[in-house]
């Protein structure tokens, strides 16, 4: 969880990335992979992930026998509630972890998943992140 908080506090723009782990009925997130926010404008309130980064994350998950469980992003200055933009762009199955940071200080973290009516429902996930990674197959040493 420290990685998610640090990522959110480091910038006034929306940060984003991937969540990987295992899904055995309850989701356990073991790896967090930061991604570049490539939104063409207004990155304080929009995020967009490069499709190639997404593809690399999927392949890294398979190679490491993990599951791509979802996406995280931050809401600078706003609660960890999904917006209509978040809902319209969301994918089924994925967990959407939202980190709220007020004046670049962590406020709250909540996770959401789409139901069959394409509406978000809050969910419980476990965060057991032990090692930060990047999908270039290098393990970054935890400092």
């Amino acid at each position, binding site marked *: 969880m420290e990685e998610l908080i640090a990522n959110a506090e480091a910038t006034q723009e*929306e940060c*984003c990335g991937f969540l990987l782990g295992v899904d055995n009925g309850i989701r356990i997130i073991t790896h967090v992979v930061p991604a570049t926010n490539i*939104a063409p404008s*207004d990155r304080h*309130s*929009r*995020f*967009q*992930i490069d*499709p*190639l980064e*997404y*593809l690399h994350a*999927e392949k890294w*998950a*398979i190679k490491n026998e993990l*599951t*791509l469980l979802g*996406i995280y*992003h931050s*809401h600078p200055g*706003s609660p960890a509630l*999904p*917006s209509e*933009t*978040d809902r319209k*762009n*969301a*994918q*089924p*199955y*994925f967990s*959407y972890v939202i980190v709220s940071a007020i004046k670049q200080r962590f406020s709250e973290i909540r996770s959401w998943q789409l139901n069959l009516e394409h509406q978000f429902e809050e969910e419980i996930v476990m965060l057991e992140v032990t090692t930060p990674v990047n999908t270039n197959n290098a393990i970054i040493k935890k400092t």
Partner: protein
Amino acid sequence: MATVFIPTPLRKFTNHTSKVEVPGGTVMEVIQTLTSTYPPLQRHLINADGKVPSFINIFVDDDDIRNLQQEQTPVKSNTIVSIVPAIAGGLK
């Protein structure tokens, strides 16, 4: 046969398989054959105009088909066609 990489959100429609071997000479032929084999995929991969929706990215190996010949991009027997959903959102 091309190999189609299925993203995690769509694997429930392919018996939880991440890779499917699909015949076809172009990207569109591969997508059409894939959706014929797994009909629930059709609404995710083919819009009312018979094209791939804008929120779906298709890669032939590491190249986005938007930079190639779109849905008419040729596909060979050892080609990997990757389906990548657009990931975006935000406060506004």
